């Protein structure tokens, strides 16, 4: 038995407890402990992914209690892939967290690091667990950390955090109610065991109710239109360091839970034949893609524009899942990784801009391309990727989604994907034009310097990562995602 699955959340939890202690001695030490814990988790995730591809799924029985009685942690190709996305993006976000938090939220520097680690522990735990109720516990660890982190932002932040808390807890409660229905219907909480026991009772009303409750719960958590209401304010008023941590990965993990439950615990045909949940998700997602893009165009605040863009981008993942074919799922999973990198990069740039100029208005981007050349080079790469220009990564996930939409023969989905690329171009080119074409404002050119190295390095790494993901996409798809996707649909 290998310990790798549990070694992904464990160092994060351990570091979360050590950080406040280290912070009593020295603030720098606290940040170092946080980085070490997060680096260890990322290293184990990458190691686990390599092992899973070479040897097949890894199972870990917590406390040596064999499943289905005990809790089981599973690293299969899907969860290993997600764990790498979460922990690697999380690590880069923590690198960025230190200088940004020191500047924006100096009195919450140590506690901020500790709660950020709890958030990452919760998210990585949700990814590796094979137990439905354990997933709820990790979900709430991640969510409570997110509410607390959002609340330390601007003056409006506690209000945004409160609304996030009410809707988020509603989502968590729906999930636990749904799991209750599943438990009383099957007598088990282990995902693999529940999957087996569910198959003969798909027609049961309790099972259908459970599916609906879990779908609504995760749609709330992933901010799937029209349940996205908590997201724009939360991302806008959160501290820059926190937005860079939450925006790239939080909603993706909820989408992962949907994939796990509706393609893993249930057979894919259940959520189409017995109750049309997957089609509903795909139509809402198609509407959300357009809605998010249109709202993004209307914004004056860079962070709010990025937040609405997130509403649109997470809907791509929902669309890929809802199409219920392997190509769509490949596109969805590839988009999870791509968008994690793109959105982290863009929020880092917004944070760096705020660090140097104190403003995040889109109109203040004018001339910044010359004042902060490296930061905005990264912004340009991420923006081109969002629009979908190859070889940036964003093009390829949209390509697979498009292939998936063509395979199901739904012209509306094709139109939504293409139209949203045009809309993305509209709101990003507006920024790009200001950056490079317009002369700077009255402000003295010499006063605005490039972002500090601690913020610039993760931003640039992500920009390079976007290009690397784009160039390696065929490898990722053929070696990893295609087998995952076809495996989930061939049961």
């Amino acid at each position, binding site marked *: 038995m290998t310990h790798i699955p549990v070694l992904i959340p464990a160092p994060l939890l351990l570091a979360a407890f050590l950080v406040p202690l280290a912070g009593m001695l020295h603030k720098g030490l606290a940040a170092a402990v946080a980085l070490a814990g997060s680096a260890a988790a990322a290293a184990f995730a990458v190691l686990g992914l390599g092992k899973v591809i070479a040897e097949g799924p890894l199972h870990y029985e917590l406390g040596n209690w064999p499943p289905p009685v005990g809790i089981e942690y599973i690293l299969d190709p899907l969860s290993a892939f997600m764990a790498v996305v979460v922990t690697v993006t999380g690590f880069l976000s923590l690198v960025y967290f230190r200088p940004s938090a020191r500047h924006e939220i100096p009195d919450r520097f140590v506690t901020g690091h500790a709660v950020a680690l709890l958030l990452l522990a919760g998210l990585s735990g949700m990814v590796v667990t094979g137990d439905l109720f354990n997933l709820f516990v990790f979900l709430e660890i991640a969510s*409570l950390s997110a509410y607390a982190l959002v*609340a330390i932002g601007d003056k*409006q932040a506690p*209000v945004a955090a*409160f609304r996030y808390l009410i809707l988020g*807890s*509603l989502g968590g*409660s729906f999930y636990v109610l749904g799991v209750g229905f599943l*438990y009383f219907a099957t007598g088990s909480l282990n995902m693999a065991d529940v999957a087996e026991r569910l198959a003969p009772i798909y027609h049961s009303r309790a099972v259908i109710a459970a599916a609906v409750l879990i779908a609504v719960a995760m749609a709330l958590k992933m901010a799937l239109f029209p349940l996205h209401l908590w997201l724009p304010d939360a991302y806008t008023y959160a501290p820059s360091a926190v937005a860079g941590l939450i925006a790239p990965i939080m909603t993706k993990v909820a989408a992962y839970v949907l994939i796990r439950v509706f393609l893993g615990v249930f057979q894919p045909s259940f959520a189409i034949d017995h109750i049309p949940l997957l089609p509903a998700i795909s139509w809402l997602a198609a509407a959300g893609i357009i809605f998010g893009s249109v709202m993004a165009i209307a914004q004056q*605040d860079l962070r709010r524009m990025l937040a609405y863009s997130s509403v649109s981008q997470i809907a791509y993942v929902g669309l890929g899942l809802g199409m219920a074919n392997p190509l769509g799922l490949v596109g969805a999973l590839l988009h999870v990784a791509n968008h994690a990198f793109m959105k982290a990069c863009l929020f880092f740039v917004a944070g760096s801009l705020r660090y140097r100029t104190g403003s995040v208005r889109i109109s203040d981007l004018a001339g910044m391309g010359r004042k902060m050349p490296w930061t905005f080079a990264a912004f340009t790469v991420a923006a081109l990727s969002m629009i979908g220009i190859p070889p940036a990564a964003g093009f390829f996930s949209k390509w697979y989604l498009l292939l998936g939409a063509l395979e199901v023969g739904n012209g509306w989905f094709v139109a939504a994907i293409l139209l949203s690329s045009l809309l993305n171009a509209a709101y990003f080119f507006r920024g790009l034009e200001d950056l490079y074409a317009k002369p700077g404002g009255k402000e003295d050119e010499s006063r605005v310097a490039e972002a500090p190295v601690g913020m610039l390095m993760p931003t640039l790494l992500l920009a390079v990562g976007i290009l690397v993901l784009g160039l390696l996409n065929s490898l990722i798809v053929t070696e990893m995602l295609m087998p995952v996707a076809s495996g989930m649909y061939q049961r």
Partner: protein
Amino acid sequence: MNLAGFFANFTYVVTTLLLVIGLYGMIGKRNLIKKLIGLSVFQTAIFLFYIYGAVQPGGTVPVWDARFAAAAQYINPLPHVLILTAIVVSVATTGVALALSVAIYRRYGTLDETALLERMKRDS
């Protein structure tokens, strides 16, 4: 539903009522504390649902006793344990929400959502 059916499902009827009341509080009420009360009622309804699922008429406490040989003679302890965890989560959520309400009241001097949204707009 006839009267006998109603009493047979009495707990589920109450659970559903509590769920609806909680949902109304969360969405229909404008005061943040009332929203929080709604959330608590909603979560409590879920606890009730789980605990009722564990009931075993005539069953005994889930501690091994030689007089009770069959598993069906014991109350199912698992839902109780799950709900113990869920209660901890719910208490933590309430705590965070109350802390947020204090922060909101200190900054804006009100807990009414309509007034808050207006004042937030003025700030941004």
